[in-house]
């Protein structure tokens, strides 16, 4: 983690040389709030899952019904058969409080980001892939570069490539809404007002299972995202998301 002094010195070094605007303030602010909330949701969500690391499909599921699959981990409750001879400490009290508080903040942040993305045309200009990029030759070239974890060229310092655009759109408009939807679908009170949101998924336990898989996809995205940031230059790209500007001719990369 860069300290404030090095951020300042880097920012002034960047502005002395040639730097390009990269991320608008609203994107930077919502990015870091989302990062904090996501980590809080991940830790607390994992803590909640270990109290019953079995998953089911349909309406009901418990110790007496066959599991769709089980996580090979110990549990925080003695009532769950896990095959381990010990029980982890129960941390559900603060985990659940943190989970729902972070959920509220991430939902408000997501709303702010989505509204501003539409109003400022950020989605259209920065995230919607250009028509010329949406052909197999272009896509497979970018995909092949990513598979080889090749460093991005200078041309990519100022904007997102097509694979980034498609991935970000999938995360923003599919995975996050799915997390929120399946989260609401697990609430007996919310479902009493809108029963359709859980019946369309096949039941309460299906909603829980989809919630879990969507979180796995988000963690996979997070890992890929961090790997790509490191490959593109961790300091440069992280400071770009902090200061909003990126060096025009980054030292690293061919």
């Amino acid at each position, binding site marked *: 983690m860069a300290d404030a002094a090095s951020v300042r010195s880097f920012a002034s070094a960047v502005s002395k040389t040639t730097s390009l605007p990269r991320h608008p303030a609203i994107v930077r602010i919502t990015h870091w709030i989302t990062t904090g909330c996501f980590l809080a949701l991940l830790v607390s969500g994992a803590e*909640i*899952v270990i*109290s*019953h690391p*079995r998953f089911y499909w349909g*309406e*009901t*599921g*418990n*110790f*007496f*019904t066959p599991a769709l699959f089980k996580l090979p981990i110990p549990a925080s*409750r003695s*009532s769950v058969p896990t095959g381990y001879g010990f029980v982890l400490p129960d941390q*559900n*009290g*603060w985990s*659940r*409080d*943190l989970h*729902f*508080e*972070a*959920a*509220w903040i991430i939902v408000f942040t997501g709303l702010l980001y989505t509204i501003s993305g539409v109003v400022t045309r950020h989605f259209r200009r920065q995230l919607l892939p250009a028509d010329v990029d949406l052909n197999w030759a272009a896509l497979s070239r970018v995909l092949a570069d990513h598979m080889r974890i090749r460093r991005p060229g200078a041309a990519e310092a100022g904007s997102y490539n097509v694979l980034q655009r498609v991935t970000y759109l999938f995360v923003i408009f599919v995975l996050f809404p799915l997390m929120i939807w399946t989260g609401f679908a*697990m*609430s*007996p*009170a*919310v*479902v*009493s*007002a809108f*029963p359709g949101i*859980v019946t369309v998924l096949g039941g*309460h*336990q299906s909603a*829980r299972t989809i919630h879990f898989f969507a979180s796995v996809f988000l963690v996979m995205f997070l890992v890929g995202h961090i790997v790509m940031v490191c490959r593109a230059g961790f300091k440069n790209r992280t400071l770009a998301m902090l200061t909003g500007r990126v060096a025009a001719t980054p030292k690293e990369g061919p």
Partner: protein
Amino acid sequence: MSSFSRRKLITTAVAATAGVSGLAAAARIAERYGLIPPDHGGIYGPGKVLTYASHRLLTRDTFAREFPRSQISRRPVANGEVPDDEDFKRLQSGAFADWRLAVDGMVARPESFSLAQLWSYPSRSQITQLICEEGWSFIAEWIGVPLSHVLNVAGILPQARYVVSFSVQRDWVDSIDMADALHPQTLLTYGMNGSDLPVGHGGPLRLRVPRQLGYKSVKYINRLTVTDSLKQFSPGGSYAWYAGI
């Protein structure tokens, strides 16, 4: 430049004052309409207030999902320990004939009900899902008397805001607001799936609050206290007081 920054400073100050007083006014209105949960303090308070307030506005006249008889779980999960103290064993050996439910606090006619008295009241049944905060769930038919009926027999005073449930298991004290206490699906259950409520499921008497998670459905109930403040009852313990999630 200096006049510009002075103007900016004044604008910021005015906006901040408006924001703070707006928040204070919103809090006062929310308090008046019963949208603030008793455990609203601490760093997790804002999340709890948002959840409780939005649920109270959304679920004013809503009903927990009910299921067809064919969806009743073949083996309902009896979680937790059965009380093993002498008093409970004595009551159990007498088929709970001496079980009493005391209703006190802010009621016009405090009373102690026998099970036979509760059975004589109009009975309701519902097939609902019990969802545990751990993640598992099952569906069962619950049979009992609406809590609102018993509260009306005792006569709720107008200042009543919460109903506190006490259990034979002394560390399991929990409470619900009047919206859930008077809800038609909130039952004092004495039967399950066509027979008596098994001891493992909280028999002879268990509260069922189907719009909230399982830990609000207190087992082995022997006392209800109607109150306007939960200060002396340490609401929620280590878990969130409102569990409609």
